């Protein structure tokens, strides 16, 4: 194998499949699909470091499922090419759904393994704000989660929060997880000397800042407010996302060596790039200014002092500034998350003021112009608001904010609404009911009907979106219309979620890096295939007990409403380690490989590429050798062997692995209980020479059974009983080996019909007939080895169709002639090697393969191929131009020559089947060597022969 792998004239296309074969001998065209192995063949040195870090555990096919292997693996130690492969069905649906591409299955797999620090690194790979997104994410990953089709989706967001919280408490372990594992150079690039300005320190800006800093650029972040974090800090209330927790994550980014300028407003982002006023010029500028301008409702009285914008209100609250709310009637306009946040903050602020200064807590209502069903706020936020005592008024739309004589808000005039036809968003459009006005008491009105970017600092030279409200960017690079200026986040999309800003930030950072380094700008992102767990697979896993229906382990624990409104304390409680691990166990591992990236961190030669896609090769070849081998017959099919009922009933192949020094026990022959067996029975011809399974002899079993008998005896000294029909020791040295084994004291029992029983105590009992003595023999055994048959692979029919092969009655591929042409097939140029043609042992396989190679070489060496003379030919004087032959030819080998008004055969395409000849009424087209005269002469010859019937 090594020789073949290293040979300069041999190209090994491993992990590949032939998809289509066309052409003919000497001129085959083969389409090959190279499956992505996610490991670069020419870089991987098979050092095996990745094996140790992979969190995935799968049954090891090579060890017949007796052991396990990780998702990144090599079939066996001697495999050629000696490189690893990652068993990956595709990107998990959770990762696919997340705008940041958060490798959720990855950190979930690491949580299972209690590798929380590694999980933290895995999360940070895609998301610089785990603690934030672990609390306030819209978690589309959970909507996509396959587990949702079993019972409930995994609580992916809560698991992230757990990891983030754990990481904060275990800084040393986290530092270890992040410590370079290969060498410092590979993980931290050289400084590039390029200077980047980031305007705005929200999730988009900080993501870009982090990514570009890690790429070696010099980064300055400008923030107009006295605090960093953008909307995360001043938009999301403390009780949902404590500022302290956010600050930790911001600090981690700033501590990379980023220059953060707080209280520094940028007046003109274009001027910032070229000018020197604010520390410029910069090589590139990122605009991440968010959407902080409130949309004002079109009502009168918006300028009254108690008429507040939600953004202003929340921003103030985030910095401990509240208007006086004691005993006030507060009305919040809107139905989104911001409205809920404003309402609940108002409840808390007013209650806290009342607690401190005496008085009544405020009365807070939300007025929304549609109904509960159309309200865009997340379910959980709405429920919390109800619990916090917020009241809701549906189907009301403000008309004017009423003021008293002193110019203070005293009420809100509204119009009653009804729902009309659905609008473009699919929600039913509210329509005002004429004359149905009402006046609501109000002391404070907070408008939360949306926000848009404040584009003051973005000059008109930077193009806007068609509605004029946001910055227009290239969707692949996030580049604005001005060279070197990029933008992302709410400034581009309008109000959205943190993950949207982070995802777009990563995209912008990639493009900015390319821009700064003069590299080609990234194109559209390659859509990687998504690994979906099919419904059938889910059912199968349920049936096998691998998956059991249950409810989520990480439920949302909340501080009691009566308690929480008296402070800004965080509402949702923490997740315990046990809960997290148990919840992680529920993951269906859709992608198999979880893409946790741990292998990448330890790969010295940087050989791992998780974004590899399948390749398609078109090969032109002269000859094809089919060496697709065999599969082991499944002994479950005959119940008398009790296979599967005891772990100590093994197939020959399983025993082979058990006794191998590279196997699961390191070569020690042990029962499932871990003990040396004292008595071992080997049953021959299981599935072979049996009309209930395969009637043929599998040829190799006698000899491997003898070898195994010898091994058992030699390694354990156990009594070995061989139940056999005939001993077939046909090869060189085989009979001698048989004699030697007999001398080792192994007991041979000749007869058929052995059967295995698993006794209640787990012991095994083998009964068989001793035909020499004519009596039934019964043996107690600690281990039974079934010498199972070998059979044609399950997909042999597809292989046969692909290469135009016939199959013999035994299911193996048919040779051209059983005696004279055992290597060729009926398709010229396609040869068979090894067990693809029939059961054979290693020396015979090598001989057969050698013969196939010689035949292929003899064919190729000539440089020309001789095709069969059996082709069709047209007698042009007889051809009546009916084109019937053209319709009949399956190879389009016949064309019509208009000028001569005759059909003509292309001999290179014609395969000589004669379908045309049989269909040509005037007999103008004939198949050479099978002409009408020749057939008629044969008929005549047979008929004129005197008939002497001799029973054959």
């Amino acid at each position: 194998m090594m020789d073949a792998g290293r040979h300069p004239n041999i190209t090994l296309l491993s992990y590949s499949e032939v998809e289509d074969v066309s052409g003919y001998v000497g001129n085959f065209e083969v389409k090959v699909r190279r499956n992505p192995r996610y490991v670069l063949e020419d870089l991987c040195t098979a050092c095996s470091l990745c094996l140790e870090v992979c969190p995935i555990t799968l049954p090891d096919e090579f060890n017949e499922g007796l052991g396990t292997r990780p998702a990144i693996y090599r079939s066996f130690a001697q495999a050629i090419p000696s490189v690893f492969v990652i068993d990956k069905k595709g990107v998990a649906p959770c990762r696919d759904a997340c705008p940041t591409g958060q490798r959720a299955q990855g950190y979930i797999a690491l949580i299972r393994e209690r590798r929380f620090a590694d999980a933290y690194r895995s999360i940070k790979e895609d998301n610089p704000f785990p603690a934030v997104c672990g609390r306030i994410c819209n978690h589309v990953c959970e909507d996509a989660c396959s587990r949702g089709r079993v019972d409930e989706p995994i609580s992916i967001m809560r698991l992230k929060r757990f990891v983030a919280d754990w990481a904060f408490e275990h800084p040393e372990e986290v530092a270890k997880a992040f410590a370079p594992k290969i060498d410092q150079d590979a993980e931290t690039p050289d400084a590039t000397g390029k200077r980047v300005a980031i305007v705005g320190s929200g999730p988009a800006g900080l993501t870009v800042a982090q990514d570009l800093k890690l790429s070696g650029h010099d980064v300055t972040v400008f923030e107009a407010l006295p605090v960093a974090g953008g909307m995360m800090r001043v938009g999301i209330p403390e009780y949902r996302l404590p500022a302290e927790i956010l600050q930790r994550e911001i600090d981690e980014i700033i501590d990379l060596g980023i220059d953060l300028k707080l209280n520094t407003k940028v007046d003109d982002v274009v001027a910032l790039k070229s000018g020197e006023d604010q520390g410029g010029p910069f090589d590139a500028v990122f605009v991440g200014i968010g959407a902080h301008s409130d949309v004002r409702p079109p009502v009168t009285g918006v300028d009254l002092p108690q008429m507040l914008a939600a953004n202003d209100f929340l921003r103030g609250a985030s910095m401990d500034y509240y208007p006086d709310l004691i005993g006030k009637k507060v009305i919040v306009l809107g139905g989104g998350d911001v409205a809920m946040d404003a309402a609940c903050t108002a409840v808390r602020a007013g209650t806290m003021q009342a607690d401190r200064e005496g008085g009544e807590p405020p009365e807070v209502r939300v007025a929304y112009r549609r109904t509960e069903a159309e309200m865009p706020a997340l379910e959980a936020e709405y429920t919390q608001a109800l619990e916090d005592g917020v009241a809701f008024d549906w189907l009301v739309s403000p008309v004017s904010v009423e003021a008293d004589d002193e110019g203070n808000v005293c009420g809100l005039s509204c119009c009653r609404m009804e729902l009309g036809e659905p609008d473009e968003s699919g929600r039913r459009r509210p329509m005002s009911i004429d004359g149905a006005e009402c006046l609501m008491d109000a002391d404070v009105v907070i408008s939360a009907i949306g926000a848009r970017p404040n584009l003051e600092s973005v000059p008109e030279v930077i193009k806007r979106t068609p509605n004029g409200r946001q910055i227009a960017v290239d969707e692949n690079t996030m580049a604005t219309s001005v060279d070197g200026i990029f933008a992302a986040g709410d400034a581009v999309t309008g109000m959205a979620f943190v993950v949207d800003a982070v995802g777009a930030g990563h995209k912008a950072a990639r493009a900015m890096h390319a821009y700064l380094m003069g590299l080609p700008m990234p194109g559209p992102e390659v859509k990687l295939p998504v690994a979906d767990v099919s419904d059938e697979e889910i059912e199968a896993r349920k049936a096998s007990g691998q998956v059991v229906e249950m409810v989520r382990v990480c439920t949302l624990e909340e501080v009691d409403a009566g308690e929480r409104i008296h402070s800004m304390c965080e509402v949702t409680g923490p997740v315990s380690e046990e809960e997290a691990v148990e919840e992680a166990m529920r993951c269906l591992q859709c992608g198999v490989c979880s893409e946790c990236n741990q292998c990448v961190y330890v790969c010295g030669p940087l050989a791992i590429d998780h974004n590899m896609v399948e390749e398609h090769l078109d090969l032109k070849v002269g000859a094809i050798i089919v060496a697709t081998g065999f599969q082991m017959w499944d002994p479950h099919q005959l119940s008398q062997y009790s296979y599967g009922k005891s772990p100590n009933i093994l197939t020959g192949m399983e025993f082979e692995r058990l006794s191998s020094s590279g196997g699961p026990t390191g070569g020690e022959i042990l029962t499932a209980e871990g003990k040396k067996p004292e008595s071992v029975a080997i049953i021959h011809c299981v599935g072979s020479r049996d009309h209930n399974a395969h009637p043929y002899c599998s040829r190799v079993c006698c000899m491997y059974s003898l070898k195994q008998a010898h091994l058992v005896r030699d390694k354990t000294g156990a009594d070995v009983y061989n139940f056999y029909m005939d001993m077939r020791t046909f090869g060189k040295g085989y009979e001698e080996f048989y004699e030697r084994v007999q001398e080792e004291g192994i007991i041979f029992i000749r007869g058929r019909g052995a059967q295995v029983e698993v006794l209640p105590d787990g012991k095994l009992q083998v009964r068989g007939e001793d035909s020499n003595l004519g009596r039934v023999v019964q043996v107690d055994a600690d281990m039974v080895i079934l010498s199972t048959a070998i059979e044609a692979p399950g997909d042999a029919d597809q292989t046969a169709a692909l290469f135009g092969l016939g199959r013999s009655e035994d299911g193996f591929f048919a040779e051209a002639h059983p005696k004279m042409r055992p290597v060729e097939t009926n398709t010229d140029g396609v040869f068979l090697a090894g067990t693809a043609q029939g059961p054979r042992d290693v020396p015979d396989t090598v001989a057969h393969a050698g013969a196939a190679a010689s035949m292929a070489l003899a064919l190729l060496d000539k440089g020309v191929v001789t095709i069969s003379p059996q082709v069709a030919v047209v007698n042009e004087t007889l051809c009546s131009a009916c084109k019937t032959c053209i319709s009949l030819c399956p190879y389009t080998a016949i064309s019509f020559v208009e000028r001569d008004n005759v059909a003509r055969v292309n001999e290179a395409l014609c395969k000589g089947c004669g379908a045309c000849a049989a269909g040509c009424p005037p007999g103008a087209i004939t198949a050479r060597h099978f002409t009408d005269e020749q057939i008629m002469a044969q008929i005549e010859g047979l008929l004129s022969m005197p008939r002497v019937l001799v029973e054959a």
Partner: protein
Amino acid sequence: MRTVIPVENDDTLAAVRGFLRRLLEEQIVDALLVPMETPAGGGRIGVVPALVTDPGMLDAANPLAPVMGVNTARVAGQVSIREPRGRVGVVLRSCEVRALVELAKLHQAELDDLVIIGLDCLGTYDVPVHGTMQDDGALDMAALLATARSGDLAPREGYAFRSACQMCEKPHAEGADITLELFGADLTAGVPVTLPDEVGEKLGLGSEGEDGQRSEVVEKVVSVRTEVRDDRFAEIREQLDQEGIDVVFAACVRCHNCMDVCPICYCKQCLFRSHVFQHEPIQYLNWARRKGAYRLPSDTMLFHLTRLNHMVLSCIGCGMCTSACPAELPVDLVFRATGARLQEGFDYVPGRSVEEPLPLITFREDEWLDVGGE
């Protein structure tokens, strides 16, 4: 559109001639392939197809003559199969239209530049009968045309239509570009015709009249003829079952006339006239020795069976084979009865549509699943 060619002085033929002339004059076609009258000796008039380009010559055209000497579809192929060619109007009886469709599938005719002018057929006589009737003064066109209106088609008393016509259940023209619809019409008043709108406009014809009686009359004719056909099929099938084709065709002289006049037998040279069937002298002797006697010319039944095999799915039942048979064998009956069986078996109607593929050049994977001993 459907319109009516007016008939003056009860002269239906003149009206039809006038219509055909207009087709040439208005250059709707470059030429017309149409049966023409010609002196045939002894005061008889023969009717043979001719390709006419001079409108003036159409005074001799007579597509209504109740005689059929050749199946004109064969020659329609000759004037259409290759470019350069003209745009030719072919005046065909219903069975000839069907033959032309089959020939188009066999690439022996090209329909692109042909304008098929189909004609309801009131029945035809064999050429010798047509001659005798003239001698006897028994050929009465007006009487024959009068049968079109009621559908009570009948030959002149004392004479017989051709065998195929007697059992023709598809005498009404179908699938033509222009159809002269005789059935159900008072042909002394006008000849109903359906034709493409643009042709009608060019000829200055306005849409006029409805289908009227035609479909009813056609239905009546078809039912009468189908009954005759079924009786004849039953008779010949009985005879074939009892005696076998070798007896029914025993009197064959192997002249190949049936093949020569068959519109479907398109081969340039029949297999049975090729080298394959020119046997060595010793071969004949061997055959004779094997059975004690051997009929010559040889391969007579093989010829008929092979011809059945080659063309019977396409047999459109014009009966020219029987008309041409010097031994007066029921060739048309044997072929039509066999054809009916195969056509039904393969769900194939010859002459129906050019789109329908010939059964033996195509196949379906999921058919005849019981064949092959599965």
